[in-house]
């Protein structure tokens, strides 16, 4: 079996992290460094008529002010995606139209942060206030246009119409929804809402830049996408890519929030202009209001089904509040359909319609779950409703109707990311086992009977209990688009350098990728010196998003290590004086196969192999660089079970127990895989019950601190049990698929279903605040 895979191996940076030894972006400072502060708009919609920076510039220590007056108005998208980006080019770094409270007015660079902050107050901005568009449901036909005559355009040939406030529009049809819906015996239609949220990576966004000894620009950044940063900064700052180096040091969490290119162009422009190092670190308030968020969503599900529960037709209509700019607008929207609708793949008539609309509110972006979280809220409840109406056991229902190995869904081809999707057959799933194990471990069958709105357990009681579940899928990388690469070279003590473009956000991918190389080369993880995410020294990788790193970058590492293995075998055979097919690797040695009778003469160590290849004969560097593009995006699957208690007096929902069974293929590192699931689940529960953005009537974010926002702390979490239930994905490294995103999608539908079990009522709007819960209980 595996030697280094499927093991709870400690993160290679673990001890350095917990002793405070690792360096994050803000831990880098340079002599003569400028400190940058950004002035953000206090108005949701306004035109800047003038900026008077003269008083600020007169302040001692103020060096530079950047605004629309002195920077080129270059359109781009802040979305760090592949090129050409599927997000519209509708943003300029500093423009003269402010489109949300938090939009960039200008930046000041000064000798100290205090001076930069003080200078912001001296800048006089004359605004012409415009009536903002704050209701996303009214955006499409509004007379207020968020992007009017600003030249915003789609970079790829997709539907885009700023004259209707449409940042994105998607439609996909399979079969004939209308006909099948009309002829169905039973029909339901429900509308669901999900809210804005902040990623809450504990490290705020930061960027530091400097000019190196040869005049090149170096940017250290809290980014998930160093190569996209390099390309986008080059575009905005008009600096050739060859003159830019981007380094991602340790980063303090991302969750999609750092897949945006926000701060890097600002420090780049200041450093390029002044030739001095520059640092910009967002305050927590700036992260909340000015960086990116989870989009707000309205989803409408129309479902036609038979008496036996068979769904004939489903229509998911999604309306996405893209906010002021369309970063990730199209692709998050597409994923709302493509990550949900294939789950029950036997439905013959499907329709997906989606629109992403502009408003004068904070911008959405990539956020763990990426559209699937938003859509599963309704999808998971709709399935529960169909089962309820037709007397089906939901576990058996999912087991019967969900996608199986060897099966496909037409949605895979119908819904891509900015273009047609990629047809694929699912070749690995353990969802049925996940359902069975989850049901057993959560006590599903006993509790579902024990509880219930009319049960003796709950009837007439103040505290009512319920149990609910949801089945889920996601993807692993964007097929035929995302590319990862790896480079390995051997050192003369038998160690290896593993250089990867992949970006470890704290997920542990540096460790996971080293484990994969370890397994191929049969040598311990400690023998790998891992360097990742440096555009000068590591090969290209699209970056850490779309649940891609283990599956995609991992396969690049596997292929690369396999090439290294061939070279090691070749040199080993040469030293041993045998043919290459007579040797194999074993425990950091090349050994002659079945060399039992003459073991001592039959092996040569990695150390000796590398020394030989460096100094002895036919000298060369044992090295390889390999790229990988996936032909498919194999879905991980999961089943989530949650038990709750509803206080019908206060409206407070308490989660009593959460059980998640997860199929991520082969979990490369069991501890890290569990950690991914636990973190996502707690984020999911916190989002379902609490987290939200509250706005003033003028569009200002009111709860812009951790204290007011209220993400979960250690004192809030219920008992959580994770069960990793392997399948084996042939196209992934040692059978691996993804795990990072899927588990954030379960809390909303599972808690809502548990609430129904407890009270007989449905929740249609997240978060399930006590106020909302009481309203539902009263109605």
């Amino acid at each position: 079996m595996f030697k280094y895979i499927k093991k709870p191996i400690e993160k290679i940076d673990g001890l350095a992290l917990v002793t405070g030894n690792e360096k994050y972006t803000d831990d880098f400072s340079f002599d003569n460094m400028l400190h940058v502060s950004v002035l953000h708009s206090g108005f949701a919609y306004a035109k800047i008529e003038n900026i008077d920076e003269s008083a600020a510039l007169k302040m001692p220590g103020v060096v530079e002010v950047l605004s629309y007056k002195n920077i080129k108005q270059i359109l781009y998208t802040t979305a760090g995606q592949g090129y050409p980006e599927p997000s519209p080019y509708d943003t300029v770094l500093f423009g003269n139209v402010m489109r949300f409270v938090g939009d960039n007015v200008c930046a000041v660079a000064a000798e100290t942060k205090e001076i930069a902050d003080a200078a912001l107050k001296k800048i006089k901005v004359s605004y012409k206030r415009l009536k903002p568009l704050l209701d996303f449901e009214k955006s499409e036909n509004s007379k207020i246009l968020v992007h009017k005559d600003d030249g915003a355009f789609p970079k790829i040939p997709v539907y885009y119409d700023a004259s209707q406030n449409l940042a994105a529009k998607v439609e996909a049809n399979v079969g004939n929804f209308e006909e099948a819906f009309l002829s169905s015996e039973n029909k339901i239609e429900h509308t669901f809402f999900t809210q804005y949220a902040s990623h809450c990576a504990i490290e705020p966004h930061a960027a530091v830049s400097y000019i190196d000894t040869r005049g090149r620009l170096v940017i250290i950044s809290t980014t998930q996408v160093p190569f996209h940063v390099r390309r986008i900064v080059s575009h905005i700052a008009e600096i050739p890519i060859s003159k830019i180096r981007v380094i991602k040091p340790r980063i303090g969490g991302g969750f999609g929030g750092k897949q945006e290119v926000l701060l890097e162009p600002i420090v780049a422009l200041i450093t390029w202009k002044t030739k001095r190092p520059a640092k910009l670190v967002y305050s927590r308030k700036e992260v909340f209001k000015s960086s990116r968020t989870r989009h707000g969503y309205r989803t409408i599900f129309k479902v036609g089904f038979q008496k036996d529960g068979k769904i004939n037709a489903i229509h998911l209509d999604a309306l996405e509040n893209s906010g002021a700019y369309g970063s990730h607008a199209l692709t998050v929207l597409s994923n709302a359909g493509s990550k949900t609708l294939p789950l029950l793949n036997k439905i013959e008539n499907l329709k997906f319609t989606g629109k992403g609309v502009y408003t004068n509110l904070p911008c959405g972006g990539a956020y763990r779950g990426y559209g699937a979280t938003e859509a599963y809220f309704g999808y998971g409840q709709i399935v529960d409703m169909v089962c309820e109406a037709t007397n089906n056991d939901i576990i058996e229902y999912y087991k019967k109707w969900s996608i199986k190995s060897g099966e496909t869904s037409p949605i895979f081809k119908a819904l891509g990311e900015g273009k047609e999707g990629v047809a694929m057959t699912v070749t690995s799933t353990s969802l049925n086992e996940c359902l069975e194990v989850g049901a057993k471990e959560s006590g599903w069958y006993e509790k579902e009977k024990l509880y219930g709105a009319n049960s003796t357990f709950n009837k007439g009681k103040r505290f009512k209990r319920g149990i609910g579940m949801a089945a889920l899928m996601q993807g692993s990388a964007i097929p035929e688009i995302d590319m990862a690469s790896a480079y390995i070279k051997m050192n003369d003590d038998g160690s290896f350098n593993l250089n990867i473009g992949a970006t470890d956000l704290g997920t542990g991918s540096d460790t996971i990728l080293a484990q994969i190389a370890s397994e191929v080369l049969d040598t311990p993880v400690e023998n790998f010196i891992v360097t990742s995410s440096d555009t000068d020294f590591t090969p290209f990788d699209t970056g850490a998003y779309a649940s891609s790193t283990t599956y995609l970058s991992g396969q690049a590492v596997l292929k690369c290590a396999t090439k290294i293995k061939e070279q090691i075998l070749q040199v080993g055979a040469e030293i041993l004086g045998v043919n290459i097919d007579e040797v194999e690797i074993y425990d950091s040695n090349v050994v002659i196969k079945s060399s039992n009778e003459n073991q001592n003469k039959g092996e040569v160590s990695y150390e000796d192999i590398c020394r030989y290849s460096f100094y002895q004969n036919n000298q060369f560097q044992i090295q390889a660089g390999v790229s990988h593009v996936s032909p498919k995006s194999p879905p991980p699957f999961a089943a989530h079970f949650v038990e709750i208690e509803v206080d019908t007096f206060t409206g407070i929902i308490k989660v009593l127990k959460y059980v998640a069974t997860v199929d991520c293929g082969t979990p490369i590192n069991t501890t890290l895989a569990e950690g991914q699931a636990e973190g996502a689940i707690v984020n999911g529960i916190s989002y379902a019950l609490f987290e939200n953005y509250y706005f003033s009537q003028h569009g200002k974010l009111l709860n812009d601190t951790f204290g007011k926002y209220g993400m979960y702390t250690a004192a809030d979490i219920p008992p959580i049990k994770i069960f990793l239930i392997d399948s084996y994905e042939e196209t992934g490294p040692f059978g691996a698929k993804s795990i990072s995103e899927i588990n954030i999608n379960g809390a909303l539908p599972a808690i809502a279903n548990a609430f129904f079990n407890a009270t007989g009522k449905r929740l249609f709007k997240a978060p399930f605040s006590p106020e909302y819960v009481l309203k539902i209980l009263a109605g």
Partner: protein
Amino acid sequence: MKASFNINNSVSELELNPNETLLNALRNNGFTEVKCGCNEGECGACLVLLKDKPVNSCQVLAMSVQNKKIKTVKGIGTLHNPNLIQKIFASTGADQCGFCSPGMVVAAYSLLKENSSPSNEEIVEALDGNLCRCTGYVKIIEAVKRSAIILQENKVEAE
């Protein structure tokens, strides 16, 4: 101005402004192991021990604690000489991005020094002021529990 402070059992001369917070004074003078997550006393990333009590250093004026013993996560243990709690944090997977870890370790260390066999409630109460988005706290709580058990088995203090 310059002023001397007692940090991690040695005297350090810090360059600072008289109105500066302890967090900024530490970070600006190379103690970057103390992290800044919010600067508002709400996330715990900047937690240090002040006279053995955990405080958010962003809420303390540096000059007000000039004569008090300050301990950062590196005062608890270093890469080459880690504390048991740090080793267990790393081996349990209590660290993901690691940005909250210095504060979490300080909180856990402080708890275990006071209370060698904390209950689950006491653990979550001690960690309540430290935010983490990566782990969901599950493995952090587990690491504190494991640390307590091993410290008890070895009959040693959390030193």
